[in-house]
């Protein structure tokens, strides 16, 4: 198990390789957080990388013992906002990045909700049976269409779609339950 604070302290003391552990431990949280604002996978990659580079650069500003993930997410949010501003300024007239409008609208309707939900998801993922989690990870990381993946796995595409929907619904319910009960630790 990675001791995040030790890895951060080691990085601050010059053992830069330890920052690899920091990234390993946090990148799912950070990516989920960024993905709630930005839909394009390449943009999510860029922002995620910029977040960690910025965090490394400003690691001396992090106060040991405080919430490192919250600090990282604050950086990620700033990077998302900068990304949007850059995009808006440059491509104002060309209807690009249309798909992000959906997530922008969602963020307008649901201000200040994401961080707790990502934390809740982390707990829900830990509780998800291993086989189901592996299934979701595999199907998310597929190359090609869902149909192609389903054929390779020996299932009908609709069966796979239904299973994905059921598991997503279960995870959404789990997140909601944890938010309602306040069980986020």
């Amino acid at each position: 198990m990675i001791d995040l604070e030790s890895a951060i302290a080691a990085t601050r003391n010059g053992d830069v390789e330890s920052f690899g552990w920091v990234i390993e431990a946090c990148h799912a949280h950070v990516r989920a957080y960024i993905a709630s604002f930005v839909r394009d996978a390449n943009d999510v990659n860029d922002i995620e990388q910029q977040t960690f580079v910025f965090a490394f650069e400003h690691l001396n500003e992090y106060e040991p013992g405080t919430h490192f993930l919250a600090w990282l997410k604050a950086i990620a949010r700033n990077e998302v906002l900068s990304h949007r501003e850059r995009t808006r300024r440059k491509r104002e007239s060309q209807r690009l990045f249309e798909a992000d409008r959906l997530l922008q609208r969602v963020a307008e309707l649901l201000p200040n909700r994401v961080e707790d939900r990502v934390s809740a998801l982390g707990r829900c993922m830990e509780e998800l049976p291993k086989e189901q989690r592996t299934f979701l990870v595999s199907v998310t990381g597929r190359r090609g269409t869902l149909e192609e993946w389903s054929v390779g796995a020996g299932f009908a595409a609709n069966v796979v779609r239904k299973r994905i929907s059921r598991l997503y619904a279960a995870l959404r319910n789990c997140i909601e339950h944890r938010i309602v009960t306040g069980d986020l630790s």
Partner: protein
Amino acid sequence: MSDNGKRPVTDPETLIAALATGEISDGQIEALLSLLAEDTPASRELACRVQDTRIIGGWLEAECNTHFAKETADLISRLWRDSCRAFVVDTMRLVSAEAQSREQATKRTRTGKSSRRASRHLRPATRRVRVFPYVVMAVASAACVLVAFQMGFFKPSATDSVAKNGQPEPVNPWPPAEVAKKGQPKPVELESSELEVVAATGARRSDGQPLKPGDHACAGDVIATGPAGSVTLRYADETSLELRAGGELAVLPGEAPVGAKERSKGIELRAGGLAVKVAPQPKGQPFAIRTPQATTTVVGTQFSLQVRDSRTCLQVTEGTVQFERGHESLLVEKDTIAVADERRPGLLVFRLAGNLALKKPATASAMKRYFSASWAVDGKLTSAWNGSPAPQWLLVDLGELCKIAAIQIFPLTTRPSDHRYYQYRIELSKDGNEWHEVVDQSANTTPSTPEGDLYLLPQVEEARLVRVTMLTNSVSLNVHVAELCVFPPQEGEAEPVRPPTSP
């Protein structure tokens, strides 16, 4: 799930399901937006489901993209080595000064519980960190990630589905072998000269049949990838081939010499790029790859081949490869590029050590933090200059007038499935006033590959300054150059390629 000319389904359940499977169409996004147009309890509930679906999707992407985390860690590691040493030293100084001041404050107030609390508070900053365990863990982690990546991230494997630490590995939970146990026919074992498809996107056989993971390719089969396709193939001995976008290859019948246990392997690469990792081959049965211009023979190494513009370009990254054209044959070593061009006689060889631009002063019209222009000439493909927003230019000063026969540029690619393309121009100048364009890729739509793009200049040019103007990146406003190589003419080869001069 896509529109296909029909009206998109606007039922919220279906829309959320499409978002979860990643198959949501533009029409369905519009439908979701219209459902979220008003601020009502129902729309807020739907927004919550959209947001949670994206959060879950992002989390899963991160889990199946652990090599991205490794790349980021490597990048930061390089940042530190190359540029950030001063930052870390400063940080250490700051931490040490902070610790000293805290220690002094602690000494002043050291009484009872408050003193113990203060010393506890100080512990993270002042205690001596044992570096060795972290190094061991980092090396072990890197080795695991590397092995997993090299074995094919989603290669179906029933035995490796659970890692030792209890975390699931991102592999297919129903590999073909397991499916076969459930009643389907058992997969046929591979012959030594047959290939198995490990991963395929948009790849087809010559009869138009799409390729999918688990398919076999035998002698005579022709495989082509579309403009944004790719296919990874594997022989039974773990020799692997990755055919890039716009590529075409044919599987050749292997030869079986008398007494040999298995057939040799053979491929004809007709177009596009091919990255090859060859396992050690049986004695006397080298793996041969034919292209229209040359034949590459190998007994076990790592290299890439690219067939483009009537030219075959071989780049060796490990070991030694035999490269033949007609009666001419040469052994191509590591970090060497060999070219067989239909418009030039013989074989051309460029050594990366002879790169005129290596570590030369470089400037750019814009640079993002820590992605300086010098990273485009540092001899590493893992670091890149990043300018934003496009278009931006990169300028390399060779220091003196140099004869230039070829230029190789490596626009950044992040991973094989990344089909981004860059549009750019390359110009040369003797004095910075007059520029002469030698490469125009302003209409390029071919995805960039890790093998880069090599340009043989029609004639040997003399220049001191090389300017690359990156016009577009198809997926982002950022433009990148991972490496720019400038090669002099080969010894004794300058005269044949120089244009005839009048007396």
